[in-house]
Every structure is written in structure tokens, then in C-alpha cells.
């Protein structure tokens, strides 16, 4: 306990965006534990003012490259809610299908390229090409399918153009959808079995660290939700309509810094794959449920590192659900749709589950169809307080292990949340030291 700990990780690697870790301790006395975000603020809420309803998705998609489909869907849902626009059953299914591509793309990128190096004891995916070629090939195959899937449904891989208020454009045909179904069935599902096996073999590298917290996500009665329903929490039975999200995502100033954090029933809450799992695990489809069983993840888990395991389970879930949707779309027949929009003034909220957690956009649109006010509430922003609280529990518990191991545990903790710091930075405010 006598050693001095001085960790200062400036611009942490293998995460999206910029984050710093600052820990100072001497002879067992902790002087500072801080998770900081020095990302350049980008001011999206100010930039969309005066822009037409037609351009809001184009602009807000650029909040994040990795979750551009989630931002696009949230944006058009907010616009539709504000202007009272209805969409068809086909649009709903195509949107779910597009959204699943992003979950698969983001989760496989995160678990495969960013987290796996920690579990296999190397610094990036590059050395794994030589040491674990089969693992890398499996990850690449899953990731490539996910990208081709979003290319097809979104019109381009990143920053989709098919997601528009009032509908979903269809630059693809039924044969394309049949091909996609075949690929998912024949390669992606078997690849997931292989990936789950790999994760199981290194699962003992995930720290055994529990810290009860509140888990918040969407939930709907029909299926494991990424897109529909109300806001739910592991701390309450209350179901909150998404329009009232500001009641859930309460910002506050933490006593030890001026950082704004978010809370509902406790000092912090967590969003993301583990939150969705903890709220909705009983709705997993059979293969995903079997994967959860194999990986030993159970509802009520409060080990933040297990978020990575929940992501693997969700990869299986989205493929399984996509196969059902593709069957339904193909049996109904794909019809070209022309979105029919009448401009109307109003305020509306859109909400989806981005891969890294629940995401809200709120717009006020005037009678000319121009945006006059916007608020975007980002999952990583909602997780920052929980990361800080994890740090405060992790440092005293693992201080004895020495500086290098502690540093790795803290970095792995941040990575486990799959943070998207560029997203959160237009909104967040964190004190510099």
C-alpha cells in the first residue's frame, strides 16, 4: 500500500474521441480520481437553428460516424413527432433492419478491434493478425457483412441517405434482401458461434468487479427493443414516455468537479448493451438466449466489463431478428414509397437505442418547417458519471496491484462502455486540471 500511484493517460487510445484518466494516490491515500473529456465542443444544437426539416438528419448524422444510423433514425423520429408525420409498416421494418446493421457493425468493431487486444494481451489488432489469424478473420467477416448490410439499406455505409422523414427510400430490391438473408444465415450466424467461443475462452480476463447501479434503456412489449417503446429502468417499474426524457436524464454538478453528470434515481446510471440486457433479457430470441447462457450472463449483472459480453449476445440477437424481418418484408413484397410530408409547427422527441445506449433528439420546428430549437441527449454523456463512479470504486479495490495493472483496468473500464466521445462533446462540460 505504500507505493505512489500517478496515472495520467492523455488522449486514451482505442476509443472513439478523446478522454483522459488522472489518478493520484500516495501511501494508500487517494488524492485524485478523474475521468476527463477534452474533446473539442462542436455545438450542433446551435448549428441546426434556422435549418430546414429536410436537412436535420443530414446535419445531426454528423454528430457521430460510428452511430450515424442511430442519430439519423432519432432525428427523423423527432421531426416526425414534431410535424405529426405518419410512417408505414414497411418503413418501420426497414428502419429496424437498417438499425440492426449498425448494432452489428459497431459491436463487432468494438469487441473485435478495440477490446479483444486487451483480452489477448496486445496493444492493437495488428499483432493478432499473426498470432490469432482465425479470430481476426472471423471478426473481419462479421464486420464486413455489417457494413455491406448498412451500405445496402442506408444507401452508403456511414451517414445514410435513405432514412428520411416520412419514409425509407428503397435503392434495393427483393433479390438484394434475399441475398442479405442468405449471407446472414450461412456465414454470420456460424461466425457468431465462433466469436462467442473465443470470448468464452478469454472471459477470465474480464475483471470480477461488481458495482450496483441503475440501468436505463428502451423497452417495448413486442420484442427486444432498439427502436420502440418507453424508457425503463432497473430501479423502478415506471415506464416513461420518450417525450418526457428530460425527467430521466437529469444533469447535475458533481461535488468533486464541475463536470455535468446525468442521474435519475442514483448518483449515476448506465446505458448500453448491458442496460438493455438487464431490462429486456427475457425477450431475446432463442439463439441469442442460448449465447447468453453459454457466456454465463444473467439478468441483474452489475459488472460493467460484462457490457462487452452483452454486445456479443446482441450481435446474435440482431441477426436473428433481422432474419424474421426479412421474411416478413419478402412475403409482403417491397413497395417503393414516396414520403408524404406536410410542414407543420410543433415540438417532438425522437429516441432509439444507439449501440452504446439510449439516445434522444428533441426539435422545435416553426410553421415554415425550420428548426428553432434542438436538444440532443447522447448515451456516452449519460454514461460519464457512471464511469467516474466505477473509477472511485475500482481505484481503492485494485490500488495494490500496482500502477500498470490499475491503469489497464481503468482503460478497460472506459472501453467497456464503448464510449463515443465525439458524440458527447458537443454537450458535455468537464473541468480541466
Amino acid at each position, binding site marked *: 500500500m505504500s507505493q505512489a500511484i500517478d496515472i495520467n493517460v492523455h*488522449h486514451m*487510445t*482505442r*476509443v*472513439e*474521441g478523446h478522454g483522459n484518466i488522472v489518478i493520484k494516490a500516495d501511501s494508500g491515500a487517494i488524492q485524485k480520481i478523474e475521468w476527463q473529456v*477534452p474533446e*473539442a*465542443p*462542436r*455545438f450542433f*444544437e*446551435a*448549428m*441546426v*437553428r*434556422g*435549418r*430546414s426539416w429536410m*436537412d436535420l438528419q*443530414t*446535419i445531426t448524422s*454528423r454528430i*457521430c*460516424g*460510428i452511430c*450515424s444510423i442511430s442519430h439519423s433514425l432519432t432525428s427523423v423520429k423527432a421531426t416526425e413527432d414534431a410535424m405529426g408525420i405518419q410512417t408505414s409498416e414497411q418503413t418501420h421494418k426497414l428502419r429496424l433492419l437498417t438499425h440492426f446493421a449498425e448494432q452489428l457493425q459497431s459491436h463487432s*468493431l468494438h469487441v473485435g*478491434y478495440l477490446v479483444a*487486444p486487451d483480452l489477448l494481451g496486445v*496493444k*492493437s*489488432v*495488428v499483432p493478432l*493478425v499473426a498470432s490469432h489469424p482465425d479470430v481476426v*478473420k472471423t471478426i*473481419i467477416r462479421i*464486420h*464486413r457483412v455489417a*457494413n455491406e448490410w448498412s451500405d445496402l439499406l442506408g*444507401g*452508403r*455505409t*456511414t*451517414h445514410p*441517405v*435513405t432514412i*428520411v422523414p416520412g419514409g425509407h*427510400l*428503397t*435503392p434495393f430490391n427483393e433479390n438484394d434482401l434475399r441475398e442479405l438473408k442468405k449471407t446472414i444465415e450461412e456465414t454470420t450466424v456460424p461466425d457468431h458461434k465462433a466469436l462467442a467461443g473465443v470470448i468464452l475462452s478469454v472471459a477470465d480476463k474480464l475483471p470480477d468487479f461488481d458495482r450496483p447501479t441503475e440501468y436505463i434503456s428502451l423497452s417495448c412489449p413486442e420484442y427486444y427493443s432498439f427502436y420502440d417503446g418507453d424508457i425503463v429502468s432497473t430501479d423502478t417499474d415506471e415506464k416513461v414516455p420518450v417525450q418526457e426524457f428530460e425527467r430521466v436524464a437529469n444533469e447535475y454538478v458533481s461535488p468533486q468537479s*464541475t463536470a*455535468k453528470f446525468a442521474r435519475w434515481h442514483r448518483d449515476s446510471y448506465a446505458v448500453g448493451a448491458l442496460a438493455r440486457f438487464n431490462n429486456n433479457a427475457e425477450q431475446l430470441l432463442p439463439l441469442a438466449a442460448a449465447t447468453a447462457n453459454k457466456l454465463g450472463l444473467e439478468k441483474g449483472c452489475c459488472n460493467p466489463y460484462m457490457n462487452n459480453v452483452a454486445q456479443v449476445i446482441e450481435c446474435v440477437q440482431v441477426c436473428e431478428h433481422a432474419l424474421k424481418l426479412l421474411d416478413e418484408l419478402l412475403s409482403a413484397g417491397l413497395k417503393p414509397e414516396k414520403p408524404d410530408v406536410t410542414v407543420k409547427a410543433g415540438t417532438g422527441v425522437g429516441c432509439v437505442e444507439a449501440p452504446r445506449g439510449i439516445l434522444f433528439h428533441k426539435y422545435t420546428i416553426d410553421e415554415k418547417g425550420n428548426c428553432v430549437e434542438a436538444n440532443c441527449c447522447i448515451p456516452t454523456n449519460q454514461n460519464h458519471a457512471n464511469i467516474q463512479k466505477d473509477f472511485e470504486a475500482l481505484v481503492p479495490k485494485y490500488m495494490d496491484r500496482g500502477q500498470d495493472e490499475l491503469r489497464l483496468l481503468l482503460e478497460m473500464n472506459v472501453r467497456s462502455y464503448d464510449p463515443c466521445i*465525439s*458524440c458527447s462533446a*458537443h454537450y458535455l*462540460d*468537464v*473541468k*480541466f486540471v
Partner: protein
Amino acid sequence: MSKPRVAIFDFACCEGCQLQIVNLEEEIVDLISLVEPVEWREAMTESSDEYDIAMVEGSITRPQDEERVKEIRERAKILVAIGSCATTGGINKLKNNFDLDDVKRWVYGEAADMPHLNTAVTKSVGGVVKVGNNIAGCPINREEFKYVVRCLALGKEPVIPDYPVCVECKKRENACRFEYGEICLGPITRAGCNAPCPSAGFWCYGCRGYVDDPNVNAAKDIMEKYGKTIEDLKQKMVLFGGKQEQTI
């Protein structure tokens, strides 16, 4: 010949262009046979101050970032700007249409004066330092990225299209978006993307920036033919900033 050392850096952006590099999947291995990655924060733990080619993603929006990009410029033999934020200022330039103090207060309220929330007029990378090559687009086109890296590794000057998106759109046999009553920036926007947006049924919003000498008269004729005004066109042009410092 030793392989050029490549470092990738990011400034204010969504990091979607770096994602396109990741999305090359196993083709990255082919590129690594030509160049040696020495720093890439999003994917690697390692870092280095010695590199030949610096690839810079993102816009420059703060005084401290100007200093950082100048240091990168000094260390590198070649600096490549990747993505709209770096090549033109991109979507971040929308901020320049407002008073900066108003922008800060609108988003951060009472906290707006805190030093870390400082922001300046958004600039492209070329607005601060000399850029050797631009890889345009929001996000970049993966084929174009590979092509430019190959050229630089072999000491050749890449040839980037200087004709409008309409050329590629016509090759794909799309109906013109103006026929649907929409405003499309294809006639003035630099090709090289293979027109994915109009091919999907959406207008071109000009993310690649404009051709060197846009045919303004032809664009005016098109606007007139379809009963649109130059003001309508400007409203679309403002999204990706074009080449102007203050967008409107």
C-alpha cells in the same frame, strides 16, 4: 526503399472517416505492405513523433488545435487532409453563421465562459497549414483513400476528378433529382464518390466540396429551368461550407 511512416490524427469531427479506413477490413493488410502505421489513436496504443505522412481528420476549431496541427505539419513531409471537416471545414462550418458567443451560450448556458469550452471560427486544415493532398467527402470514399495512399507510397501525384458529380450520376443512369422537384448540388460538386446519394434517391449535398471552376452559369440555367432560386441553392450549399471562410 523503406516504407513511409504514417500517422493518423483527428480534430473536431465525427471520426467517420477513420471508420472508413477500419472498414477496408483485410485490405488494410495490403496497405500496410506499402506504409508503416506508427500512430493511430483510435485503433492502436502506440504513438510516435517521427512520421513521413500525416493524415489529418477534422476541422480546426480552437486556438490550441491550430498549434497542434502546426506541430504535426512541421514533423511530416506530406500532410493529407481527410474528409470534409479537414478539406473544407465541413458541417462544423455551420457554426460560423452565428456569433460565437451566442453559439456557446446557446449550448452551454452559464458555463459558456469556462476555458475548455472556448471555440473559434471553424477552419479547414488548409486554412491553417499547407496541405499536400485532400481526400474529400463526408465520409471519404474508401477506394479514393486506397488510391491516394498507394500513390503517395510510390511517390506519384494522385489525380483527383475535377468534374462534377453529375458525370458519375449520369453514368449510373439515374433520373436527375431536379426532375423530382428537389435541389441537388451535383452540378457543382467534385466527383469521385460515384454518386451514392442520388443513386439512393437523395440529392447531393456537396460534401466533397466544389470543382475548381464550377460552371456557375450552367447551375443558374438549371435553377431557372426548374423554377428554383439562387437563394434555394445557397440554403443547400451552406450545409457543407464550400470553400468560403464565413459561409453566408
